């Protein structure tokens, strides 16, 4: 990712972000509320309503910005959402099968793979037959996202606040599952988080501090430890602009359905 600038509703949120995540690496993006962390995740995946102003994002040489979201996924990108959307009446297995068909990997034992993934992260099997994210708790939704990552086997995964809603045991299982993917398949990870809690379980190779739409500091895992004690105060004030609240994730562009 080079020189990425992006806006939401005409307001520039990302103001020049450079990042490079190699296979097998874990990168953490930390930062205060409103720094643009979730926007970064949405722009990489291509969520409607997020406008790229400048810069490039490539995955193994493929220009992701030229692709629709589903094509980005087909190219090997996965984005675990902070607030996964409820999709009534749609079965997880049916969605995963359609996704695999689109990349020529359909016809396999999706149900079996779902069960094996569920077991690895302590996700109760009875949730597998629920409509997508419907009547799941926050933590169950995060496990559901992790399960999908395991089945779809992307080459790069963005984890947007995957730790929120998970209790400590679940967090450990999810972190181990992701780490196993990095070690066994060379998954590259971009973990967006506000707290250090995830990074105790999923050790980052690089920590980036995002503030007001720019990476303002980079370091190793020790940077996350340092932030734990110093907080973001020093970074948030690095740029003289006024208060800048990040657009909440669930508050994306309205669809046309009256509710």
């Amino acid at each position: 990712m080079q020189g990425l600038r992006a806006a939401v509703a005409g307001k520039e949120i990302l103001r020049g972000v450079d990042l490079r995540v190699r296979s097998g690496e874990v990168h953490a993006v930390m930062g205060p509320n409103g720094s643009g962390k979730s926007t970064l995740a949405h722009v990489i995946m291509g969520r409607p309503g997020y406008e790229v102003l400048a810069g490039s994002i490539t995955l193994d040489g493929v220009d992701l910005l030229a692709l629709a979201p589903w094509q980005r996924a087909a190219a090997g990108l996965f984005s675990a959402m902070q607030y996964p959307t409820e999709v009534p009446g749609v079965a997880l297995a049916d969605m995963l099968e359609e996704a695999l068909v689109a990349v020529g990997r359909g016809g396999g034992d999706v149900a079996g793979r779902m069960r094996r993934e569920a077991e690895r992260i302590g996700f109760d099997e009875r949730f597998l037959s629920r409509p997508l994210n419907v009547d799941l708790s926050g933590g169950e939704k995060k496990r559901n996202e992790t399960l999908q990552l395991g089945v779809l086997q992307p080459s790069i995964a963005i984890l947007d606040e995957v730790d929120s809603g998970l209790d400590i045991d679940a967090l450990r299982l999810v972190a181990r599952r992701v780490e196993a993917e990095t070690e066994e398949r060379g998954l590259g990870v971009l973990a967006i988080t506000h707290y250090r809690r995830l990074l105790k379980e999923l050790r980052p190779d690089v920590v980036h501090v995002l503030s007001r739409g720019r990476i303002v500091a980079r370091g190793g895992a020790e940077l996350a430890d340092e932030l734990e004690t110093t907080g973001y105060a020093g970074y948030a004030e690095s740029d003289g602009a006024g208060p800048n609240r990040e657009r909440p994730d669930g508050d994306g562009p309205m669809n046309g359905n009256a509710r």
Partner: protein
Amino acid sequence: MSSFTAEAVGRLAGPPWLVRRREEAFRRFTSTPMPTVEEEVWRYSRIPELDLADYVPFVDRAPGAGIVPTDLAAVRERLGHCSAVVVVANGRITHVELDDAVRAVGVQVGRLTELDPEGASLGSVTGEATNAFGLLHDAFNADPVLVRVPAGVVVPDPVVVLHWTDVDHSVTCPHLVVEAGEDSEVVVYDHGASPDVDALTLPVVELHVGPAARLRYVQAQLLGPRVWQLGRQVSRVDRDAGFSTAMVALGADYGRLEIESVLAGRGSSGEMLAVYFGEEGQMHDFRSLQDHVAPRTTSNLLFKGAVQGHSRSVYTGMIHIGKDAAGVDAFQTNRNIKLSDGAWAESVPNLEIENNDVRCSHASAVGPVDEDQRYYLESRGVPPAPAERLIVLGFFEEVLERLAVPAAVPHLRAEIAAKLTRREVSGVGAGA
């Protein structure tokens, strides 16, 4: 109009009371104007396109007994064990089967004119015909079907009525009467289908739910793409009874159904469900009435529709709370997905409340596929067209999973999926 004559009416067989009833209805029909879109009831309808001169009432002698069209045999097969099966081809009963055990406890299924020689059950729920089509129905009602469940009897498997229409330019007027006696229980599955013929059908269904009885009625409408249907369904629900009606309308060029549920007895409840999905130039037109006459009655309506291609749909719903109906709960929800720019859906909910001690709500919506849901699926790698297919199927699932005849659901779900697939193939599916 020349083929709609007293002579044609006279060619229909039946007992004297039925012959007189038809003659009287025809006499009134000749002096009743055809409805127009000037009338609120027909406001959004396609009635101006209808020319009765294009059709001929089907009054030929009844076809031979035992005829079960192949398509219906397949439907019958999928349903597994049924407590009774009636086949009505072009408005005439051609086949009746009734489980021995069910017959032994007094359940009656078959030709109304044989099971009810005085004919008291015919029209007992609908009352007098209210317009020209109702009168036309009564004039050419050839062979009504009666399903009668005695008090206290629980019918274990569905009673199935299969309607078939395959005569080009015909008008048929099938009529079904279901009487569920006190504290009885029965599920009735009514399946209407046809090949690709140009025909008009005017079905009427009367459902009488006796005190504390449980009647669940499910109707599938899979008529051919040139068939016009102008149907009426009326239910009367007595004290403490539980009624459910569900419609799955996928076929017909113009399929209109007026559904009235009268909660006549204290403590009765009615559930009304529908799924409708139009493609190409189809139009589905529903009118519902939740009529709360008695106190402590409950009704809950959930209609879900989709339109693709240049199809259209109209839902017009009324909740009426009578002045004596205290302590009523009445809910009405209509949701529609509009899948193409050329499609059109209208939703018109209404309330008429004459008693203040009620809990009442209505909600309606027309809009495209939910953008957040579609993005979620796309972010997992599902291309837009299959993503929309999954979401629309999921949207209908809320109703389909509640149908009282689970064995019928896989086929109906597949018919819906086939419509969505045709959309993908024709390339009018969602762009990226």
